[in-house]
């Protein structure tokens, strides 16, 4: 119990965000430690994806600071955060539609680190990553022609290609069958064993309960509860938020 | 002092005309999302039609307007037939296709009418003259003002107070919801082009008697239409009128102080400024283009 807590990977300190005068996130404090899988839950419009956008540098917080691996990254652009080892997937997949699945992953390999390889040199690795997410039979299919769930898996492969230290997964298991969720859960655990820290947005809680060490519940831009998964989902405030009856 | 008034008169007349020009573009763009870069060329075609009716057939100037009002909607409907076949991504493809169409029409006009500058009724008569002040309103300016404002008012009434206008506005604001509400969006597209054609038909002769028509002159009119549409938002007649006046006044002021040939810079600079300051521009309401 008294062992030292692992070092901090990501720290959000009093982060607020507003869009056109409308507050979207209010005073968020959040820590992700090395070796953790953190789930982010909450009803629609709670600000989960916006939180990801702030961490990944798509938008910059109106107030507060974000520190990633000891560096102040609040105003960093996305590509710089990527080079520092942060990767994400998008809620609505954003593949490069005209490129093949392999080329999509190649781009991650080429640009994910500053000294990335040239296209020809990385094909083998890209194939391995596609195999990891079960897309090795679609190597030469244009990404725009893949199904939604294939595009999601492609995004994971592409994000992994940047060799991340912290991976943000946005609704990766939404709408999947129980077996498919099981597969995703196994993949997540595998990545975790390889030393990748993860944050997972999961509105329907079908994946987070299987893999997360800790849950953070958001509602209307505020953290209403954080802690052990079992406690969080039984907490009356969280239940009320999901039912839409929270004051 | 009276110089200011003169700018106000010239700019007001010109600006009302620009609002008329923008109205057609905005209606077509709003309903069908077609970026019509050949819009100015259509106005020129209408202008040439009026010019030759006046010059070769001896029709009085105001007699040319009804002919243009009949011919141009037909041309606009043909354009709709053409644009309906453009594949997705529709906006950028319609932009490139109409850019090509503009090129075709420019060269067609060059082949048919040569590169000469033409003006309908070159001589203008003072309609109102106040000798004490030096203020003059020509008959051309008066006609321009009356016809433009009347057309704008009619479109405004149509959009605000008729069932058809409400359906058009619904389509402009929320295409899919309009469809769900039982509006035939397809038919609205045809109607928008027909009304746009009427407005082009009116704008052509006005253009031909106010400024010189020549084959390469259409880009200017297109830029003005787009500028005002972006300024005002789609299908909002009052803002369009305001935008037209602002552009007209800016051009009149530039022509007065810097010389007539500088006024072409005004619309280009305004358009760039609007695009840079409001990059979401026309699509602002869709929410697709968050910052």
């Amino acid at each position: 119990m008294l062992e030292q807590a692992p070092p901090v990977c990501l720290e959000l300190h009093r982060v607020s965000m507003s869009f056109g005068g409308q507050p979207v996130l209010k005073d968020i404090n959040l820590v992700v430690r090395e070796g953790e899988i953190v789930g982010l839950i909450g009803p629609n419009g709670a600000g989960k994806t916006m939180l990801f956008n702030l961490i990944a540098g798509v938008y910059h917080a109106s107030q507060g600071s974000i520190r990633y691996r000891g560096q102040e990254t609040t105003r960093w652009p996305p590509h710089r955060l990527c080079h520092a080892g942060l990767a994400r997937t998008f809620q609505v997949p954003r593949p490069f539609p005209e490129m093949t699945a392999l080329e999509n992953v190649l781009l991650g390999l080429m640009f994910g680190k500053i000294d990335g390889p040239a296209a020809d040199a990385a094909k083998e690795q890209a194939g391995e990553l596609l195999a990891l997410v079960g897309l090795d039979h679609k190597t030469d299919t244009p990404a725009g022609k893949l199904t939604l769930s294939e595009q999601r898996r492609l995004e994971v492969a592409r994000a992994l290609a940047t060799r991340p230290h912290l991976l943000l997964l946005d609704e990766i298991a939404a709408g999947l069958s129980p077996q498919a969720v099981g597969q995703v859960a196994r993949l997540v655990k595998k990545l975790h064993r390889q030393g990748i820290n993860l944050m997972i947005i999961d509105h329907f809680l079908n994946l987070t309960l299987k893999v997360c060490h800790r849950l953070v519940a958001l509602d209307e831009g505020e953290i209403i509860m954080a802690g052990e998964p079992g406690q969080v989902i039984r907490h009356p405030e969280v239940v009320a938020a999901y039912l839409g009856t929270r004051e | 002092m009276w110089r200011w008034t003169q700018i106000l008169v010239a700019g007001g007349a010109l600006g009302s005309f620009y609002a008329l020009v923008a109205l057609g573009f905005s209606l077509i763009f709003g309903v069908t999302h077609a970026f019509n870069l050949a819009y100015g060329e259509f106005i020129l075609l209408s202008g040439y039609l009026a010019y030759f009716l006046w010059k070769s057939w001896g029709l009085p100037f105001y007699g040319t307007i009804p002919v243009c009002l009949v011919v141009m909607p037909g041309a606009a409907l043909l354009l709709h037939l053409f644009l309906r076949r453009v594949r997705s991504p529709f906006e950028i493809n319609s932009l490139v296709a109409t850019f090509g169409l503009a090129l075709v029409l420019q060269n067609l006009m060059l082949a048919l009418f040569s590169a000469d500058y033409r003006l309908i009724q070159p001589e203008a008569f003072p309609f109102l003259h106040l000798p004490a002040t030096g203020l003059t309103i020509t008959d051309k300016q008066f006609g321009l003002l009356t016809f433009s404002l009347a057309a704008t008012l009619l479109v405004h009434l149509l959009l605000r107070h008729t069932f058809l206008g409400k359906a058009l506005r619904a389509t402009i604001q929320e295409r899919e919801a309009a469809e769900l509400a039982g509006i035939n969006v397809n038919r609205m597209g045809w109607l928008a082009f027909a009304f746009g054609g009427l407005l082009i038909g009116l704008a052509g002769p006005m253009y031909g008697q106010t400024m010189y028509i020549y084959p390469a002159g259409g880009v200017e009119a297109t830029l003005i239409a787009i500028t005002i549409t972006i300024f005002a938002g789609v299908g909002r007649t009052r803002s369009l009128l305001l935008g037209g006046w602002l552009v007209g006044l800016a051009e009149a002021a530039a022509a007065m102080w810097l010389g007539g040939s500088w006024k072409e810079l005004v619309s280009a600079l305004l358009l760039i400024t609007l695009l840079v300051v409001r990059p979401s521009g026309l699509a602002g309401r869709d929410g697709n283009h968050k910052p």
Partner: protein
Amino acid sequence: MGTISRKPYRKQNNFFCRFLASETWPLAAVVGGLLLAWPLCFPKADLYYQVLGMACFYGVLAMAWNILALAGGISLGHSAFFGLGAYGSGLLAHYQGWSPAVTIPLGAMVGAGYGVLWGIFFQRLRGVYFGLATLAAVEIPRVIIDNWGSFTYGSLGLVGIPGLPDLRLGAVEISLGASLRALYYFLLALMCLAGALHFWVMHSRWGWGLRAIRENEAAAAMLGVNVRRSFFLALLLSSFLAGLCGGLYAHLLGLIEPALVFSLHLSALPLVLSIFGGRFHFLGPLLGALLLYPLDQLVLQPYLPMGHAAIYGVVIIATIFFWPRGLTTCLSKRRRSV
């Protein structure tokens, strides 16, 4: 990462090897060979030297445009760079009397300078809005040059610009001004150089990043592509090359006027040639230029002295309607974007 091999990357092929490995090098070789060899069979064909030489010239302009289009920037205003390059070079030659070998690159830098301004002001504009802004951006230099008569001779145009100088390669003297055949070979060589550059851009790491930006900007940024810098550099190179073409044009023609070099026609031409030829293939803009320009000049121009350029409008419309990816799509067996 355990599941992913950590083998050292294979040594990179250089671009020449990669060119030989591409599916289309035989076509490039055949076209190049034909262009190189036909003058041997028809030594006296001045009209053809001129038309094919200009086709090569417009091929370079089309490739300049395509470098920006590779990143998704569909420009409707490349004549701005062309015109500034022409005026920059022409005015320097007129006032300073410098050789075209000096003034053309300097003129190109004037074009690139305007490209920098685009990069600063249009950096947030994409797609249709970028297109509109570029269309309007042509008017600014045009109206200024038109009105600044005391310096630029305004709408009267700048006349008497010196022609290209003679080249001396060892003992051989090539008179670009006097011999249309020499000029043809010069323009052909220029096109080959630009073609090599175009190939390099498309297949380099940077070019991959540009394609990613075109396909999805947010995803590209998230994968580590520096969107702003990559796009800016594409704009810079594109505007420099377009300016170079403009400078060359001024000395080829000997006279320029604002309505000629800042025309809608010159903005449309590279776009039409590239999209018709296929902007996703490095040969596309070249083939577009080599097919369309001679068609326009040799077949249509005699029948329609005014307005023959309508063909470019017709072609771009047909391309958008029937084969939006251009001619060169049928070259690749696989549907792919390079």
